[in-house]
């Protein structure tokens, strides 16, 4: 529903004339995030500080207009998509690093700070911010906190919530609060723990205090080829089975390696059935020892063509390939649909062969690239949105893959959140009672359901809509 002129006026008074967008054609450009869901917002507001965020939320509350916080829009579950319309609260203007404390090893940042910028700014103090989603070049710390994002190095370092010390948040009534504080040990009810990962449904995050870590003195990165996904998965289990926890342990299948190699020329073996990227860090002696042990385990499990990065530049290139992998899939088909289910590590071989079979059954190409050490899958179903016939199969195949995950004792999402895409599947793993507890927390903090409505909680209406009807304006072409 378009906003009334007086609401728009109020928003402009708060955020500034140029920081409110209502031109309908422009709004269409904001309809999607990194997933394939889409819906056009009624307005974009670009606040510059906490006061403006609070004031915008108050206006929305007064008129009962949905508010959807939006970071860089790299989310992969439709979290930032304004499915009920309303105001997209674009946090990207708030991108100042307010403080880096090299002694206390913390940083205080605004939510729009891009993940990688924080590590770049901390580097002169020999510090870095550990959670490193593959989208770290673009995604925001606010978005990371809202999704409780992970990344390759979270195997060893832990996900976002392990690194957030406290947050300033604005609740649905426009009130501003600090949750938790400076200490790693959160005292009292752990509200910060509740709000990290709340996907914009409980609060807008306006400041984040995070822990920084010392850059390890020595890092070793190894690339290993395997004849098949199966053997690579076994190698992963074997490494962890030996009690070794590498800093990162990532897998890519043949399809992915081909796409990645085309852009990055990182020297990935394109003939391998799968590759593993393994990293260990620490002091030089221990990384050398660990890497030697890992090499042994990998070769016992049919690993070959092992190559260790010799220079930081080589290491960066190997990682660039891994981190750009999902984007690189565009070289095969223009769209991807992915679920990021997690399974117990020992179930990796089983779940991956199930995924492969589903792909074959639906005749859809599937590319696997994922955090193997965590058992966190990312099967990407590749297709072309312009081919609308295929959409139904894409969705069914995705659903079956997720089902396979759950059947093997896994969970719906490792790191991308539930958002829109997975909300319908929540009842697969949560009982009605579980969901009821969650919705009580939601209504305690946001009684009128103002913040990011239609997310996380299953919406029976929406489920009836086929994927083709949900991807927004982009595919509603007349001539398809």
């Amino acid at each position, binding site marked *: 529903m378009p906003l009334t002129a007086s609401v728009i006026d109020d928003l402009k008074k708060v955020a500034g004339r140029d920081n409110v*967008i209502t*031109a309908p*054609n*422009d709004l*269409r*450009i*904001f309809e*999607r*995030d*990194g997933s*394939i869901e889409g819906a056009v917002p009624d307005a*974009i507001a*670009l606040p510059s500080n906490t006061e403006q965020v609070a004031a915008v939320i108050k206006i929305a509350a007064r008129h009962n207009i949905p508010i959807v916080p939006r970071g*860089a*829009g*790299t989310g992969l579950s439709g979290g930032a998509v304004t499915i009920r319309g309303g105001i997209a609260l*674009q946090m*990207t*203007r708030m*991108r100042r690093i307010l403080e880096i404390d090299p002694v206390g090893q913390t940083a205080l940042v605004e939510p*729009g700070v*891009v993940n*990688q*910028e924080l590590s*770049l*700014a901390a580097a002169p103090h020999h510090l870095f911010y550990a959670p490193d989603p593959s*989208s770290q*070049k*673009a*995604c925001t710390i606010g978005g990371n906190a809202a999704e409780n994002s992970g990344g390759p190095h979270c195997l060893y370092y832990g996900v976002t919530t392990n690194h957030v010390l406290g947050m300033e948040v604005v609740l649905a009534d426009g009130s501003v609060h600090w949750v938790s504080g400076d200490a790693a040990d959160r005292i009292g009810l752990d509200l910060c723990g509740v709000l990290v990962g709340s996907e914009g449904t409980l609060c807008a995050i306006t400041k984040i205090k995070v822990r920084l870590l010392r850059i390890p003195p020595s890092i070793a990165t190894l690339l290993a080829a395997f004849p098949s996904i199966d053997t690579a998965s076994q190698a992963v289990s074997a490494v962890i089975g030996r009690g070794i926890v590498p800093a990162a342990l990532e897998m890519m299948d043949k399809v992915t390696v081909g796409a*990645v190699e*085309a*852009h*990055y020329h990182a020297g990935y073996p394109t003939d391998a059935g799968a590759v593993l990227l393994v990293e260990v860090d620490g002091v030089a002696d221990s990384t050398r020892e660990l890497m030697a042990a890992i090499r042994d385990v990998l070769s016992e499990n049919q690993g070959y063509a092992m190559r260790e990065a010799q220079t930081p530049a080589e290491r960066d290139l190997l990682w660039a390939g891994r981190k*750009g*992998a*999902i*984007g*690189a*899939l*565009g*070289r095969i088909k*223009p*769209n*991807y649909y992915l679920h990021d289910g997690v399974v117990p590590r020992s179930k990796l071989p089983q779940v991956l062969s199930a995924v492969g079979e589903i792909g074959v059954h639906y005749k859809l190409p599937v590319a696997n690239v994922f955090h193997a050490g965590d058992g966190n899958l990312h099967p990407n179903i590749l297709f*072309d949105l*312009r081919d609308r016939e295929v959409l139904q199969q894409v969705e069914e195949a995705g659903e079956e893959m997720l089902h396979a995950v759950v059947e093997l004792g896994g969970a719906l999402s490792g790191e991308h959140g539930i958002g829109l895409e997975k909300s319908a599947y929540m009842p697969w793993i949560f009982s009605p009672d579980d969901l009821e507890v969650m919705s009580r927390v939601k209504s305690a903090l946001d009684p009128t359901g103002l913040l990011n409505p239609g997310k996380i909680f299953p919406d029976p209406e929406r489920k009836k809509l086929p994927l083709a009807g949900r991807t927004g*304006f*982009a595919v*509603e*072409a*007349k*001539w398809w």
Partner: protein
Amino acid sequence: MKPFERLSDDDLATCVHCGLCLDACPTFRVTGLETESPRGRIYLMTQWKREQLPFNEEQVKHIDLCLGCRTCEAVCPSGVPYGRIIEAGRAEVERLRRPNAKRRIAKAALRQLVARPRRLRAFGAVTRVAQATRATSAMRSGRQLPPLHAPFEVPAGRLAPAIGPRKHRVAFLVGCVMPILYPQSHYAAVKLLQLASCDVWFPEGERCCGALHAHNGDLDEAERLRDENMRMYASGEFDALVVDSAGCGSHLKDFYPGLQGRVKDLSEWLAEVGLPEPKREVKMRVTYQDACHLAHAQRIKKQPRDLIRAVPGVELVEMRHPDICCGAAGLYSTLEPQMSARILAEKLDDLAATRAEMVVTANPGCQMQLASGLRQRGSHIAVEHISELLVRAFL
């Protein structure tokens, strides 16, 4: 012709909407807006092309605000050919939009002035007089110009012979604005080529390469200039056409299939053929600004840095974001002065933080933009073309 006919739907469809390019885009970094991002621009052009959004004058500003720096293209893992997309998109936009005085003047200036060397030289001469009498400081674009010296002179016989043994014969692109704005960069570049055992040939009748025209949506003129130039290049023999202006080099590589593989940026070529041992130390703290059309369009980042590091005495310190555009982007700083100034301000902060005495780059537009920004801040950081820094080690 149907609207947006020149845009390829397949090119557009390579964008998977992942957003990895967003923060690499200078205009997104300062505005935080999807509409001012590569992904947003591609989405907009896609909707136009597919007739899902009507062409609309208001939205043209998102296309106008694109610097054409192609940083997005360099970081895009999906291989979106953004340079090709925006060039075609611009050409279509220029065809469809209402006539606009500022852009019409720009187009006329490009056709009438830049594409005609004699007129451009005359313009340079007038400007030199105006600068001497301080008349130029009244105009914004005038203030941006560097102090002009006598323009670059092609050596007698249109050949600068190799110093020492002759191993290669190269053609040198004199170009349109470089010889007038930065003759000293050209002199240094030619000297380096001679030192690197190259005979340097200056083909007669060379015209502007057409880069500025193509980037500003005048593909017809760009094609005309290409055809004329190709006739000239066909008349001589050379191992490489060496270009010391990144914008021209990238255009020649993309737009002149007839020169396939023979166009080389100065640093690319020097790294390939090698320079002799340097003669002296150059004690200086230097930072390097990647010219967009070198780093992103031609993917050349390593060679210039290697060459700089090889100069004894030089300490190369990197900016946090050496490969983000300075906001010059051809005519952009004149056509979109506000956005250009915002982007430049970020760049100058980054520059200042390095505490370098000199910033080196590889394109006249960047030199001009950085120098004018630094001048306005009262900074003493010097700006030089990479050729000028390198040649100091041999003087």
